[in-house]
């Protein structure tokens, strides 16, 4: 068996990084970076998620075909998000989402 065993030291470093990342996210949320706030929040979250996938879930030491499946998950999620948002963000201004009729009736 040539199984790779990740040592507790590596896990401890990852844990610390994840906790620091959480603190930085909260700090960044209280700063006004304008439209960059969401980019920073998602950037830190993606960094944390990558660490979890690579080390806690051992993907860094997994066979190539397992890594391919992980990459596929991200790619397909990307396709779903990107293509749908391309639609929603390019609607004409008067085509924006309005209050559903059911709620309008409810409010009247």
């Amino acid at each position, binding site marked *: 068996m040539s199984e790779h*065993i990740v040592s507790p030291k590596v*896990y401890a470093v*990852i844990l610390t990084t994840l*906790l620091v990342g959480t603190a930085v996210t909260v700090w960044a949320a*209280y700063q006004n970076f304008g439209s960059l706030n969401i980019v920073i929040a*998602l950037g830190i979250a993606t960094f944390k998620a990558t660490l979890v996938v690579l080390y806690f*879930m051992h993907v860094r030491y997994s066979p190539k075909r397992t890594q391919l499946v992980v990459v596929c998950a991200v790619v*397909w999620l990307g396709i*779903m998000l990107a293509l749908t948002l391309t639609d929603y963000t390019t609607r004409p201004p008067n085509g924006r989402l309005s209050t559903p009729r059911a709620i309008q009736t409810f409010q009247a």
Partner: protein
Amino acid sequence: MHRTGELYGQFQTLEQQKDSAALGMWVFLVTEVLFFGGLFLTYTINRHAFSTAFGVSSNTLDLWLGGFNTVVLIMSSMTMAMSVWAAQVGKKKQVTVFLILTLLLGTTFLGVKVIEYTQKFQHHLVPAYHFDITYHSNHPLATDKPEEIANEKEELEKAVDRKNPANDQDLNAHAQLYFSLYFGMTGLHALHMIVGAGLLVWLIKESLRGRFTPQYNTPVEIVGLYWHFVDIVWIYLFPLLYLIDRHR
């Protein structure tokens, strides 16, 4: 599931057998990514369309409880990873200890979630059930930090003022949209946590019988993959739900 760790006929080595099990779990997790992805997509579209209502609603959430839960869940991922390690190096007692710690942290998370949901009922923030986004900051019995409530109140009064044509005229309806997504996403996440806790109970039972060894620890590894995935979902949920427009 093979539970004794003998080599099945279709595999050549135990390692190949274990890799195949992990691959199967990953394929399942891909479907989970797309499952949660649909919710994140809905969230993104609505947050883009109703950013004021989403910001106002997000600020009513208790950041301390949410932050505490984030730390708890990250710690539980650590203990889960450590139980896999303990199994790999043959420390049978530690496998059980780390699994029990993981279960305790997981149930702590769910307990805090119960407190949060209770607060939503008390603050009239449950969609279609006496929903009123202005209730919390107007109500003298709402007992969170007074200065934070005062800030919320000021922000709400500006946002609710219908005379200003730039304002969202249906703030209350759009805040319900936020809370529908809040309950939908955290609820689905909590459901995954409950399933994970059930799996942990089973793992603890098996590990008490000394089942997990350096040669055979596939169930610990596989449940670990699931547990870490649920952690990743929360890593995204926390900033997206709790941290919108906090700098105001």
